[in-house]
């Protein structure tokens, strides 16, 4: 999901580094999404035999997002065979899933699946995955009363709620002493509408447009990666300025058009502790191939996509192995996606990978 920096933007930021004025903190104007021909050749799968064959045969990648043929009619995955649990594997599973050394009962367990079930029933799993998620979806640690991702993730995992609830669930997150309270709220939207999250990612766009929050919504749900760019000292940084030149693509043209998405979000008023939010007034926006009425429609569309499922299982791989999946691990990855799609919980998605025989190789 990485969008390489457009070359003119990169050149600008390199040449005028000392003159840079931080205008749009966090994301700023994440200029450019057009891939450089060279970058495409270097990073894209054009390097692989399969991709070369596809290019030769004229196959195209174009499929409607979230409605791929594979998603509609997935081919059956090979069944999981029971795998004997070695001591070394018990250590690996225990530390990866709970952050703890294996206890004697786990070491006495004979089969990987049973060991995984024991470990994932532990509150230590909810704690570890909530921490992991917090670190993946935020740039840095925060105070306990300003940490909605961690507290909601832990709530969702511990109560076996659908993982999508983290992003679209109807919850309220309120600061309390030593943490945050999670309660039901019909107007909630995961943690995205919590006051502390909005303040954290309100950004500093001059007119209060929440570009940083818009980027975070895309990043958190689909793993979108953008390289932040910076403006020149005399550059027009208003929406009008961002709608021209190399900034136009990220802000108004690409599938994640940040300014368009931000119109679905509130507008920031005031600074620091005095920040308040005014409701959006621009009305429905055309984005992600449809007219989106509000931020709920935006996030729900993102969460209903292949991109969301893919990003969640890539995170599951990072959690289990400290790295993303590779080509040889495609079947294990597909098991994760299938478990997430059918059983809905992140516990099921992690278990699907953790029980794969390759984990203990």
């Amino acid at each position, binding site marked *: *999901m990485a969008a390489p920096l457009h070359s003119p933007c990169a050149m600008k930021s390199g040449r005028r580094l000392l003159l840079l004025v931080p205008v749009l903190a966090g994301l700023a104007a994440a200029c450019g999404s057009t891939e450089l021909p060279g970058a495409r050749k270097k*990073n*894209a*799968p054009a390097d*692989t035999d*399969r*991709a070369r064959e596809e290019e030769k045969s004229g196959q195209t*990648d*174009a*499929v*409607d*997002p979230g*409605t*791929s*043929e*594979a*998603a509609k009619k*997935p081919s059956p995955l090979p069944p999981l065979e029971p795998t004997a649990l*070695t001591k*070394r594997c*018990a*250590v*690996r599973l225990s*530390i*990866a899933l709970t*952050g*703890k*050394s294996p206890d004697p009962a786990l070491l006495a367990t004979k089969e990987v699946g049973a060991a995984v079930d024991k470990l994932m029933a532990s509150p230590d799993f909810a704690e*570890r995955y*909530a*921490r*992991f998620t*917090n*670190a993946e979806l935020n740039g840095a*640690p925060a105070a*306990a009363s300003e940490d909605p991702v*961690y507290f909601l993730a832990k709530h969702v995992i511990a109560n076996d709620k659908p993982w999508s609830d983290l992003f679209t669930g109807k919850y309220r997150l309120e600061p309390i002493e030593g943490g945050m309270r999670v309660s039901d709220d019909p107007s909630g939207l995961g943690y995205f509408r919590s006051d502390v999250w909005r303040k954290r990612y309100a950004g500093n766009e001059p007119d209060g447009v929440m570009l940083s929050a818009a980027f975070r919504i895309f990043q958190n749900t689909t793993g979108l990666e953008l390289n932040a760019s910076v403006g020149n000292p005399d550059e027009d940084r208003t929406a009008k300025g961002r709608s021209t030149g190399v900034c136009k693509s990220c802000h108004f043209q*690409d*599938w*994640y058009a940040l300014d368009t998405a931000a119109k679905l979000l509130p507008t920031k008023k005031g600074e620091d502790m005095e920040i308040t939010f005014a409701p959006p007034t621009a009305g429905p926006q055309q984005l992600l191939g449809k007219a989106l009425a509000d931020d709920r429609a935006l996030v729900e569309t993102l969460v209903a996509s*292949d*991109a969301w*499922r*893919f990003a969640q299982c890539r995170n599951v791989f990072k959690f289990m*192995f*400290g*790295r*993303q*999946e*590779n*080509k*040889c*691990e*495609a*079947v294990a*990855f*597909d098991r994760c*996606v299938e478990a997430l799609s059918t059983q809905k919980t992140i516990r099921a998605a992690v278990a699907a990978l953790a029980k794969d025989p*390759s984990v203990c*190789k």
Partner: protein
Amino acid sequence: MQVKRFLAAAASVFAFVACQAGDEFDDSDQNVEGSALVCTSPPIPRSYVGFDQNKLEQKRPDEAVDLNRARFKPFSVMADEYKRVLGVVPKSLAPAREAFGDAPERWYAEPTHSGVSLTTIFNVGLDGCTATVAERTKAPTAETATAFCKDLMEKAYSEDPTAEQVAVCVDLATTKLASVTDVRSRWAQVCASILSSTPFLTY
């Protein structure tokens, strides 16, 4: 001087482990080019389509299925790990928390190590090992070193050590550290070298 000798002992075990990993592959030209590390028979993956209409699975690294699995154990497990292997938790472990890169509350960080942290790890291991070899009053022989190395490696690595691993450990105890006149110190250094090697420090 003592520290240098300790580190040399640990380094010999590290180097040995690295050689072992390399020995899993033959020396053909094919492997020199690194093709043994790539996925030679990739499964046909399901396809996932992004909002930009690209296939999301296409940029996966071309690596073998069990590559890059070893990760450093986090600080949170080290007390239990030392206890499991040595029967004691080294007193120097808790103050070394920062050397292990432990994550703050509600946060997660993949442990990484530097020369400083690896030195600290050796010293923590030596601290714990010194307490556990207090009863050893005779210098290691091939026989006693073999038994010691096999037993400790099995506990530390959570699997049976290879013959080569044991041989290197025995050589360290009987030859490379032969100039260490303090017998307990010699056993402790052998022990600490095992607890500084990657099969113990990773999972």
